[in-house]
């Protein structure tokens, strides 16, 4: 078994924004958007690193960092409360890069060069936090080591068009010749995940300092051959969250064990902040089908094709259909919610209706506590 933990330092960027205006990201970075009931997007890069035994991680913070600080804490849930190494919450540009599909602002890397200078690891793995997957980083570090490349970029064959992503042009021997903004069906979609030799990274920090306003891959675009940028194809499930539309659509597709179990592989668990909620409670007369339900929910009414986060209450006679309800929402008796995303703490009054359409999801922002 390879020892990634002795070879690799982690770096996660949580400070870029979606270009789209959404109430879901009005007061939180994309990285801490709730996902799949009990998780937040940042859980995935942190867990992928944890499962590879990585013990030192720099997490680049956004301007509106409250929710992410609250969620990540000391990093103990991901075994990052270490005496040696551990979690470093490091500053970054408040909004990351302004370009679509770009996640690794060189200025942030330069600002945090101490993290890379102090390390004795040969490699750095860098990840964004809006593309969700569960992969074995050991294998990728092994492939990187074997190839002798300076950088190995991880990609997946794209199954849809996406502006807010980038794609790799790959030439001989899997070498990347170009990183292009945007991504179409069949392209090599960059998963915002790559391995770089630490010494090479330190050289880039010195050599490209004047281009610090660029994404690292823009800055080095002319030097791919010299640096030797290799690619690695990931064949598992990849879920990119690029705005409300992809968030809703991809979440709905995940209501299927044969799909979501590709993310929640017990051998490489996805860990989130521990909470102590009791099991979900179904009352006599409740009717729940084809849904994902979290702990602490109380179901008296009907739930179909939906994802419910922790502590959601669906009163009797209420109906929740094809919707995503975040933590502590209450659907009062006789109310109906359909094709909607309700952020935390929303209370839907009795006998009222909140309805989007399959084409236009209705999205309600986070409600203040005790909205009743």
């Amino acid at each position: 078994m390879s020892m990634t933990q002795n070879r690799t330092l982690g770096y996660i960027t949580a400070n870029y924004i979606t270009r789209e205006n959404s109430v879901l990201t009005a007061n939180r970075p994309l990285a801490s958007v709730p996902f799949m009931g009990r998780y937040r997007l940042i859980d995935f890069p942190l867990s992928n690193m944890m499962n590879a035994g990585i013990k030192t991680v720099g997490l680049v913070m956004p301007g509106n960092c409250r929710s992410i600080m609250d969620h990540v804490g000391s990093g103990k849930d991901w075994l990052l409360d270490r005496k040696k190494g551990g979690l470093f919450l490091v500053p970054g540009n408040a909004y990351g890069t302004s370009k679509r599909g770009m996640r690794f602002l060189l200025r942030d890397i330069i600002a945090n060069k101490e993290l890379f200078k102090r390390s004795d690891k040969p490699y750095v793995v860098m990840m964004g936090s809006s593309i969700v997957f569960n992969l074995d980083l050991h294998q990728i570090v092994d492939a990187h080591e074997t190839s002798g490349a300076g950088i190995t970029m991880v990609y997946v064959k794209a199954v849809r068009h996406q502006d807010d992503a980038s794609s790799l042009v790959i030439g001989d021997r899997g070498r990347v010749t170009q990183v292009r903004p945007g991504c179409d069906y069949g392209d090599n979609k960059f998963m915002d995940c790559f391995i770089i030799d630490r010494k090479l990274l330190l050289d880039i920090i010195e050599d490209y300092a004047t281009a610090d306003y660029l994404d690292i891959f823009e800055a080095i675009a002319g030097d791919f051959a010299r640096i030797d940028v290799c690619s690695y194809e990931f064949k598992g499930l990849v879920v990119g969250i690029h705005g409300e539309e992809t968030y809703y659509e991809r979440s709905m597709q995940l209501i299927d064990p044969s799909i979501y179990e590709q993310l929640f592989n017990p051998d490489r668990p996805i860990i989130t902040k521990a909470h102590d909620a009791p099991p979900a409670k179904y009352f006599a007369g409740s009717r729940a089908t084809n849904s994902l339900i979290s702990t602490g929910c109380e179901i008296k009414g009907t739930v179909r094709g939906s994802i419910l986060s922790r502590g959601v209450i669906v009163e009797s006679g209420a109906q929740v259909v094809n919707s995503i309800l975040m933590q502590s929402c209450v659907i009062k008796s006789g109310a109906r919610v359909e094709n909607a995303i309700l952020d935390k703490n929303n209370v839907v009054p009795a006998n009222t209706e909140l309805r989007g359409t399959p084409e236009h999801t209705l999205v309600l922002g986070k409600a203040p506590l005790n909205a009743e």
Partner: protein
Amino acid sequence: MGKKECIAMLLAGGQGSRLGALTSKIAKPAVSFGGKFRIIDFALSNCTNSGIDTVGVLTQYRPYLLHSYIGSGEAWDLDARDGGVSILPPYATQEGGAWYAGTADAITQNLEYIKMYDPEYVLILSGDHLYRMDYRKMLASHIQHKADLTVSVMPVPWEEASRFGILTADDDGRIQRFDEKPEKPESNLASMGIYIFSTKVLVDALEADAVDQRSSHDFGKDIIPKLLSEGYGLYTYEFHGFWKDVGTIASFHETSMDLLGPNPEFDLYDKSFPILSNITTRPPHYIGPDAVIDDALVSNGCKVYGTVRHSIVSTDAVVGERAVVEDSVLLPGAQVKAGAHVRRAILGENAVVEEGVKLGSVDTTKDTAVVGNDVVIGKGE
């Protein structure tokens, strides 16, 4: 070490042999309960919720799961620098070592631990009872009475009183009599096995008991009657609320069923006094397109395709298509395969009921069916 006002000693070494197959490989306090908890969570959460930050957990029988589950105590906020959880299995000295011979002996063998913290009071608890209690109220009562020992009691139905240790107290709560399982009870106040001792009284009583050849070294049988006969100030603290000893299969099943229904007496959802547990992160549970769930608790990681009525489905358990689960408890990882019927049964952790098997009966005059941890029930078994 800083001096503590009160520390807790949690007796968790019992085998729980009356839980049969459920405790064949693990200690009773480690048995799963309520969908995502283990029995010891209730006592540890009571300690945390009562502001007690030093807890010695006395273990003996099959301790591995219990030890790894308790870990650093972090899950209950008991990973303190000065105090926290300490696991206290039997140990050896120059004079040799011995198993814990009884509840009192277990504490006697760990008097050094108590002396290390030099507390004013010692709270003695069982790791196998289900209840919510703020021990601060009991301690306040102990201090107010200037008691040597306070015993927590609760009224039980008169017809059941002969199953318990029964205490008779005067109007001020001072204990006059103690009868272990009396045929003709004088009172219906039953001991809950929760004691607060003033430390010096405890130390003296245990040191005397240790050299008493006739003693069975048990709090109920030996220590309390002796202190009573010697005229010490023993008081009751009356508790009103849900308290259950889930020591038998029947009581385990019945107490589990008590968690169901619209207004259960024991409310797992009370956020002011949360029950904390050390759990692994699993995704939300999935409810299939044809599932029917009626009056049930379902935990994370489960998949339910069939019908679940009046049952508890613990973490990662699976109910297959067309399967029916009624009046039952599926412990973590248990699987009921397609078309199988499980009625009035307890399936142990990772137990499997194969396709089409019919297990258990709704007939309440029959014993609850039990499948041990990791046991597979196929057709014809």
